[in-house]
């Protein structure tokens, strides 16, 4: 394991460097796989970079009716396989983090694959290599601990009754230890019809 991905939204300054760097990549030139989201645009300019969290139980792959979304041995969930993807948008609707996007002109779901061409040979992902404020960081846990003594990485999320464990870590303040991050608390409206299918 040469490195892990750490996202620290507190440090994001909304400069769009990651978006520009992502669209530079030759595997999807001109189309950014990272989404820079505003938390609540009317009252704040705070932005959050959204990369694929690479879940241990990828919801996008679970809902894919065409068996198109695959996870490589190192835990990276890849873009839908072109010969199989039927452009049904199930993954787009199902992902708790809103990562997959349908590229209508290719009839293909494309998503962040942690710059697989780079990370698989030991380089940092494009976005993490350009982020000026350290909101996106790729490296070892020790490096992260040294840089952010006030923060700790969390990779457990709750989306309704769904608990999600991810490969990518989210940095949260240390002084108030958390077990998980509630994805839905960031939503404005109350989600409906939440029930645990396994109970």
């Amino acid at each position, binding site marked *: 394991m040469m490195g892990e991905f750490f996202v620290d939204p507190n440090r994001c300054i909304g400069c769009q460097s990651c978006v520009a760097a992502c669209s530079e990549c030759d595997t999807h030139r001109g189309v950014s796989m990272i989404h820079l989201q505003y938390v609540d645009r009317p009252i704040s300019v705070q932005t959050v970079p959204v990369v694929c969290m690479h879940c*241990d*139980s*990828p*919801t996008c*792959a*679970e809902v894919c009716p065409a*068996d198109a*979304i*695959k*996870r*490589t*041995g190192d*835990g990276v969930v*890849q873009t839908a396989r072109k010969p199989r993807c039927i452009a049904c948008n199930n993954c787009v609707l199902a992902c708790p983090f809103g990562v997959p996007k349908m590229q209508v002109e290719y009839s293909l779901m494309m998503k962040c694959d942690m710059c697989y061409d780079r990370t698989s040979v030991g380089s940092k992902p494009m976005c993490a290599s350009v982020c000026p404020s350290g909101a996106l960081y790729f490296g070892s846990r020790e490096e992260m601990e040294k840089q952010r003594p006030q923060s700790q990485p969390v990779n457990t999320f709750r989306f309704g009754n*769904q608990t999600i*464990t991810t490969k990518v870590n989210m940095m949260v303040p240390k002084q108030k230890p958390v077990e998980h991050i509630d994805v839905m608390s960031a939503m404005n409206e109350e989600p409906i019809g939440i029930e645990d299918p*396994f109970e």
Partner: protein
Amino acid sequence: MMHPSDQLSVPPDGRPYHDQPQWRNDFPIDWPQDELVARRDFTKFLVLTSFAFVVGQAWIAFENFVRKRRGAPPIRKIADLAAIPIGGAITFAYPDPHDDCILVRTAEQRFVAYSQKCTHLSCAVTPQVEKNCLQCPCHHGFFDLATGTPTAGPPRRPLPRIALQIRDGAIYATGVEVRA
């Protein structure tokens, strides 16, 4: 050997792979397992496919045997000549009730009859006497009205021709001529 239960991804209910339904092993999320074709699965596929071919050949031989035993189809009256106008057509079933055929009177004393099933995908062909052809509306297949040979569209084999005989002011079907 790589096995589906070695999957890295965790099913949503968190239970181990041997407690999971079979489809999870058949459609793994992990790429290495998805790419894997086990030697045993491949051998099973080869054996079952070969067996299916053998069964198919045996079935064809059996069908040929039964067809030969059945003998020539009976001579059956189709209609009175007066019932068919020149340029008109009627349908009939020959030799079995489900073998739909079509009889066309192209001139005073000229009759042609063919099986109505298009040799492409068995849609019913319709006669177009003024254009001297039989048309299959499903995929725009055309057959020559005089001979039944395909002239355009997907069909490649001619329509089976029904042998005809005119006796005592009536027309009779006497046989089916299947042509390759």
